[in-house]
């Protein structure tokens, strides 16, 4: 049981603050901060593995890593993954929102007249669930790239997307209509590791909490 805990580190917007958190816990992050192309960094207390945030629940659920850090947006979208959500880490604050074109209320009108609203999103399950729970009909269109393009080009009436400052939305002539969820970075654990490596995981949770 003395193997180091394996911890998934999210690449992208949560990366820097996650490394700052690890520094505060006296975990050496210098190799991750260097320009290395490596994905796995062995250490004494932790083996750190970098991956896309949306892959974190997959690796954690399967037990390929014991713990992971990812955004609440990812956990909401992949709600069916069985992982233990242990801590709200506080950083990476952003909102999942419904946005439509600025000063254009025709989306409401269209929803009323056509019975459904067309929504482009990278979070199809979150968007579908949000409208279903409110008894509203939505045609959810999954896109992979810049979602803001969809309402500008006429692919969709609105979008469901993540925004931190709202700047990208504004610059593309979109404004927030509804807030679906508030999101921050979360610490998640594999179900088996949560039981079998209880002492180490509880100690880590406590150290992060006391930070």
């Amino acid at each position: 049981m003395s193997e180091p805990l394996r911890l998934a580190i999210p690449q992208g917007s949560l990366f820097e603050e996650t490394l700052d958190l690890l520094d505060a816990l006296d975990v050496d992050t210098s190799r991750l901060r260097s320009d290395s192309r490596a994905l796995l960094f062995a250490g004494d207390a932790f083996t750190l593995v970098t991956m896309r945030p949306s892959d974190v629940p997959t690796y954690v659920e399967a037990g390929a890593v014991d713990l992971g850090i990812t955004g609440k947006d990812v956990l909401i979208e992949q709600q069916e993954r069985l992982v233990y959500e242990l801590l709200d880490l506080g950083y990476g604050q952003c909102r999942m929102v419904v946005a439509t074109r600025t000063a254009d209320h025709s989306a409401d009108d269209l929803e009323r007249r056509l019975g459904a609203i067309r929504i482009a999103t990278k979070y199809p399950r979150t968007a579908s669930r949000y409208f279903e729970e409110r008894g509203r009909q939505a045609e959810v269109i999954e896109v992979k790239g810049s979602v803001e393009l969809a309402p500008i080009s006429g692919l969709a009436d609105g979008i469901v997307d993540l925004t931190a400052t709202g700047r990208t939305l504004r610059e593309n002539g979109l404004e927030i209509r509804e807030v679906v969820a508030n999101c921050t970075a979360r610490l998640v654990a594999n179900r088996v590791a949560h039981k079998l490596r209880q002492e180490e995981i509880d100690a880590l949770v406590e150290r992060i909490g006391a930070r």
Partner: protein
Amino acid sequence: MRACGQAMSNYLIPPGTRDILPDEMRELRALSTVLLETFLRFGYGEVWTPTMEYEDVLVRGDERAAGVSYRLFDEHGHVLALRPDMTIPIARLVSSRYGKADPPFRLCYLSHAYRAVRPQRGQQREFLQAGVELIGVDAPEGTVEVLEVLCAALDAAGLTRARIGLGDAGLYRGLLETVGVAEAPRSKALEALERHDFVALDAEIRRLDLDPAKLDVLISLPQLRGGAEVIERAIALGGEDTKSATARLRETAEGIERRGIAGRVIFDLGLVRDLGYYSGAIFEVYDPALGHVIGAGGRYDDLLGRFGRPLPACGFALFVERVHVAQAEEERR
């Protein structure tokens, strides 16, 4: 002999089902035999029940019909369903076949069960279970006996590092009631716990109008897991409130200690299982080589009553294919 090469013609089988070829089958057969022999050695008799049952009968066992996924009509228009586990069929069997016989009944099985799968998750629609049911012996004696059989089965399979997580299905609900949490927030808190979402649980509890000491108990207790000392820690934390909630777990702990299997068991005060018929002790089986549970079980003291033969009962099922994967991983170490 390995299956290899380009398929001459490839006729598909449904996702979540598998063909098993001789190399794997030989090992699976050996594992199954070792498990069954262990059950027989403890005086459990093997039974066989139909793969399909009337849906009404399965739903009588678990009104949410949580596990029932595959239904078909027979030639008379009756709805048949593939069994999602063996516990309900055995409850039916005991009340129908042993209606006048004196309990206890010690039964075991090696059977396939059927559940729906989510795509691309490596889940099986058809999976093999090896398990026991002990019917007519109350807690804690019955629970402790079943745990002893489970430990012996894990040893027989060579999984000496495997551990059993032991909790109580009614523990947290009972604590919320004792502390005086109203129905609506209570079910919200329980839902968060069932999702294993401690962040949401924390938020739900902090929203309650309770004194800080009680809030602390409600937040900390479901995170307690470890040796029998966690029960004492729970009582130190919450006094009388947690004393009554953990009373059953405490009795089981004493029994486990007497049988010398305490080192195998992790007490988990936040453990929940999603099947509707569990009451009292619940367990999950873990092996460090695998990220998924390899078995599960618990007490179901109210289930037999739904079939007209009220008797206390307890059992477990090991997921044989997963136990086999764990065996292979342990050998690689």
